[in-house]
């Protein structure tokens, strides 16, 4: 009896030490990655986009040859500071819940006379989207450090949140993936990349709070719309339409879950 117990204990300790050593190993790799991220954090190329975006914001353009300076991002015409921290939100004039990019499209249409369909159809990083990306970099930088504060008080906001939640769990494609396949549990990784659990406040703040971001692997500044687009590509889904309700609903779900977290945009990502 005594011997059995000792054997069991030894085995137990052995198993624990084995799993501990692999844990330590994994820990070292993630520590090293953390060090790498720290090294590149100083000098985020998003700044280059932000400079261009500020210029585009203040330069007359479009058929109406107007600037975006009177654009209402939810805090009143012309208020950029802090606006991104409270998006998506319901807008009375369009009677819709809008994220930053769909709202900017409204401003470009109303103030500058630009055709929103051209924005929807343009490929990322090119033509009108290139302007959009720079403007987004400018706008989100002006919310850096603010608390994420998204409301679901309006029935349409609440509805959008629920639709987004359902979309988050929607499985499809030849690999049966949903957003939740990768972002529904704590402490998981793909390869060496940590996967925030977007269903929790902490995880959502880590995800939502750091996008839009400069993406090191592609050398591009990615808006939230492009981030979601590439998620769906990797999920092996068809192409999500730019600024569609689907994409806004997902943003609403993540942003609301992230409430109370800090806006760290523009981030710097792998």
């Amino acid at each position, binding site marked *: 009896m005594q011997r059995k117990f000792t054997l069991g204990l030894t085995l137990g300790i052995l198993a624990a030490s084995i799993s501990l050593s692999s844990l330590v190993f994994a820990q070292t*790799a993630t520590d*090293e*990655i953390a*060090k*790498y*991220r720290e*090294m*590149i954090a100083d000098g985020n190329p998003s700044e280059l986009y932000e400079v261009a975006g500020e210029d585009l914001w203040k330069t007359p353009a479009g058929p109406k040859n107007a600037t975006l300076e009177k654009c209402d991002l939810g805090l009143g015409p012309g208020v950029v500071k802090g606006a991104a921290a409270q998006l998506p939100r319901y807008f009375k004039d369009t009677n819709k819940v809008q994220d930053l990019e769909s709202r900017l499209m409204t401003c470009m249409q109303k103030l500058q006379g630009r055709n929103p369909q051209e924005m929807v159809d343009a490929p990322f990083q090119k033509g009108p989207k290139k302007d959009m990306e720079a403007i987004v970099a400018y706008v989100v930088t002006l919310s850096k450090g603010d608390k994420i504060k998204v409301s679901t008080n309006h029935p349409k906001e609440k509805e959008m949140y629920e639709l987004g939640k359902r979309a988050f769990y929607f499985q499809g494609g030849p690999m049966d993936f949903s957003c939740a396949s990768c972002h529904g549990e704590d402490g998981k990784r*793909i*390869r*060496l*990349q940590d996967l925030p659990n977007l269903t929790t406040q902490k995880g959502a703040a880590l995800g939502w709070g750091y996008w839009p971001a400069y993406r*090191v*692997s*592609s*050398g591009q500044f990615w808006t939230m719309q492009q981030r979601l687009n590439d998620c769906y590509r*990797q999920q092996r889904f068809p192409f999500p339409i730019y600024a569609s309700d689907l994409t806004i609903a997902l943003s609403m779900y993540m942003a609301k879950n992230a409430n109370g977290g800090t806006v760290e945009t523009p981030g710097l990502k*792998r």
Partner: protein
Amino acid sequence: MNQQRRSVLKYSAVFGLMASAGLISLAQAQEWNKAAFEGKGLDDVFKILGAGSPDKSAAITLNAPDIAENGAVVPVGITTTLKADQMAILVEKNPSALAAQFFIPAGTESFVTTRIKMGQTSNVYALVKADGKWSMAVKEVKVTLGGCGG
């Protein structure tokens, strides 16, 4: 004083002035060193830079991560207690080894940081020229596959 001697003096004075003003290295610095950047292996580049086979030096610190999350952006810094006038970053397994070269005038610290691309896990070399002699530090940087793309 004869004429010849005077002109020699004048010449060396001008040369000395140029050197002290950094004009010689400036001319060298402003002409892109095509041959060095097109040199394939480490030894090719060492030869073109006139570095021979540089010794490792504890006075040089190569600041780079052990693991890079992405080979497209690998931060690399060189610091040295030597009085460097040139620095170079080389990646052994890149198609062309030389990534960047720096010319450091007097008054500038022996320190530079930039970011480079690495096609795969490789040794990275920090070369420093001080007092006419090249020496180096070496570090392996692991480049990992990331994301879902594989």
